[in-house]
């Protein structure tokens, strides 16, 4: 045997910093750290100097100053005497609203278009392809502007509904599609949990004169817009509508003015959730029965009933009625007003994102090999069952991650609200507020943080999903 020369233990040498794998990465990282630190401190010191030169400071105090501007669509109470912070919050909620609505509609559109594109009906699949390619290859901004213009140009304006030969409302005089948006009926309750005002019999007109006042619930869908009078001026304060005991006022005689408050909607939401839960239980029970006997009982009607019946009961108990929009002074009063800006943005975002989702859906279904379908058919499974039990569970794994990142894109793209004057967070916090206060640095920082947090949340959800459905492999 030859000698095994243990290499002499030498002390630490400087060149080990570069040539020794153990220290090398340390060295590189420290250098990188220093460089990054230098860069950051350079940027920050520049900023400090520049701010100094401009005589500005870095201060978020502006958020508590009165905003002074109005926002037409508010999900929470807001008027121009409230703070910039509050305005930002209104904007955030508006962003979230259009994002959620957009994601929902885009999914529907995308799934439908994706499936239609796979249809063996030539003309249908061609049409779906035209839709997909058309929307994917033209800038979103152009679509938003186009749809907005299309809606204002081709829909009748509210004044056209006046008179005999004017436009007429749809669905039994309850829905009006105008170039200011769509007015749909609002649900109001004569035994509202938030309490009802009682119109003194001698002055029914007084209540009607301030249509916005009695609808100033603390929250709820009715606040997407209130009738014709979207913006309450500062003095016309809404009476505080909270307090459960106010319901007793209904008994006080006189005509009860139906209204809705956040509590009503909370209750309804709770009932619906309970109903869905119940339907799920029914489904589980059916599965148990099937396991035990092999026969699966019909559950669909029962499930529908489980959701609908309690809902109807609650609606009746609350004395629900439809508050139909009616042509008032300049606009329709009552009902819910979905503004053009919201609709155009919503439609454009959904159509655009839907086109991408359609491709994802198509890809997801195509990714499931034909062999899977054939195997299922060969086992005697029906096409419907095959879809539910074999194709969809597999396709969803492929579809959902890119789907969620499309949701992310949609949410980010909602910042194009600027094109139609939809008051999202970029228009309030990142637009008018910055413009009125000159706080670009602070405003943009907050705005960026908001979007960042939002997208990190969404991608967090995606990661959890991904790891939960990973296919087991060797």
């Amino acid at each position, binding site marked *: 045997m030859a000698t095994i020369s243990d290499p002499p233990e030498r002390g630490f040498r400087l060149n080990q910093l570069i040539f020794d794998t153990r220290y090398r990465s340390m060295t590189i990282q420290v250098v990188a750290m220093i460089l990054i630190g230098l860069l950051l401190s350079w940027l920050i010191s520049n900023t400090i100097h520049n701010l100094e030169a401009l005589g500005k400071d870095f201060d978020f105090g502006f958020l508590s100053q009165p905003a002074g501007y109005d926002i037409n669509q508010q999900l929470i109470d807001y008027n121009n005497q409230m703070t910039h912070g509050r305005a930002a919050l209104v904007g955030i909620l508006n962003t979230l609203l259009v994002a959620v609505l957009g994601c929902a509609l885009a999914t529907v559109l995308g799934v439908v278009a994706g499936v239609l594109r796979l249809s063996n009906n030539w003309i249908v699949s061609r049409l779906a392809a035209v839709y997909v390619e058309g929307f994917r290859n033209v800038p979103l901004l152009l679509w938003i502007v186009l749809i907005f213009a299309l809606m204002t140009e081709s829909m009748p304006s509210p004044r056209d509904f006046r008179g005999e030969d004017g436009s007429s409302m749809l669905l039994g005089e309850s829905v009006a599609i105008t170039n200011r948006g769509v007015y749909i009926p609002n649900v109001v309750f004569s035994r509202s949990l938030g309490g009802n005002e009682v119109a003194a019999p001698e002055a029914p007109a007084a209540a009607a004169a301030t249509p916005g006042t009695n609808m100033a619930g603390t929250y709820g869908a009715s606040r997407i817009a209130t009738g014709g*009078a979207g*913006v309450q*001026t*500062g003095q016309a304060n809404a009476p505080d509508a909270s307090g459960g005991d106010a319901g007793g006022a209904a008994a006080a005689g006189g005509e009860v003015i139906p209204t809705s408050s956040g509590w009503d909607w909370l209750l309804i939401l709770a009932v619906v959730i309970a109903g869905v839960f119940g339907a799920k239980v029914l489904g589980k029970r059916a599965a148990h029965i099937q396991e035990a006997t092999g026969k699966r009982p019909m559950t669909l009607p029962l499930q529908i009933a489980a959701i609908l019946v309690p809902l109807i009961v609650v609606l009746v108990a609350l004395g629900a009625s439809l508050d139909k929009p009616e042509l008032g002074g*300049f606009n329709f*009063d009552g009902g819910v007003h979905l503004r053009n*800006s919201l609709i155009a943005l919503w439609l454009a975002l959904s159509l655009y994102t839907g086109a991408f989702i359609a491709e994802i859906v198509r890809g997801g279904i195509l990714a499931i090999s034909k062999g899977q379908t054939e195997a299922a058919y060969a086992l005697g499974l029906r096409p419907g069952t095959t879809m539910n039990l074999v194709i969809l569970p597999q396709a969803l794994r492929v579809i959902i991650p890119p789907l969620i990142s499309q949701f992310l894109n949609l949410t980010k793209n909602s910042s194009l609200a600027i094109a139609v004057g939809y008051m999202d967070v970029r228009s309030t916090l990142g637009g008018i507020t910055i413009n009125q206060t000159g706080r670009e640095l602070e405003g943009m920082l907050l705005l960026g943080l908001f979007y960042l947090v939002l997208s990190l949340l969404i991608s967090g959800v995606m990661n959890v999903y991904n790891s939960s459905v990973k296919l087991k492999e060797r």
Partner: protein
Amino acid sequence: ATLDDVKARGELKCGVSTGLAGFSAPDANNVWQGFDVAYCRALAAAVLGDPNKVAFTQTTGQTRFTALASGEIDVLARNTTWTFSRDVDLKFEFIGVNYYDGQGFIAPKSLGVASAKELDGATVCIQTGTTTELNLADFFRANNISYEPVPIETNAEAQQQYLAGACDVYTTDASGLAATRATFENPADHVILPEIISKEPLGPLVRHGDNEWGDIARWTLNALIAAEEYGVTSANIAELSSAPTNNPEINRLLGTEGELGAMLGLDNEWAKRAIMAGGNYGEIFEKNIGEATPIGLSRGLNAQWTEGGLLYSPPFR
């Protein structure tokens, strides 16, 4: 200093709006035209001797102040309202008023509205990022009536919304209203409501702190106004400046007497060149937005003080 930069560059960088009929818009030959544009040309002529040595930068309501603050432009000649906070808090210097304006409303005749106070519940189109929306809020609050604001990014779009009936009234500066109405197919179907709900002195502005440059910008504007007052026009300016006249103000203005130009750091013919660039204030007005143009604005408040208006240039002395 800005003056040195401009001279070294050989070009004036002037911020204008992205497009407002009569005030600034590019024509088919890529040349910017308009009332605001004319001021920039006059300034360029005064400083650089050539009215065409201007680079126009388009700014939006959102970006205009930063563009000026960051030095991206030397002067902002986009119809910008002179307000306390803009002057003091945002650190700019308004160098004068080139157009006295006020916010008004336009409404279709068919609406049957005679006063803005009858607008309770109306839908109002506004341009965002301007003082307009604050004025509007104040007005409706003061009158205790409600409205539905429809914020729009550009004037062209707001106009289209209004025409299509997506809003009942459109509010912006009265000058803009007139300009807008002028381009309608049937201008007569629309009325401009009598209420002017705000004071909107529009004027060019420069950065705080560079007083020499501010002076040049201010006195170029004043020169245009004074020229009209003294009857100096682009037609007679050659003659008037060829030899001293017997009006010493004109002489000082046109540099045939005194050393006003040198005090500004320019030569003595600066004002002459500025006036020759597009004519005096009155000529610029008539050419771009006056009654003979499709915009059809009357002088109104913007007449010379001698004719009952507010234009009043300090003396050249």
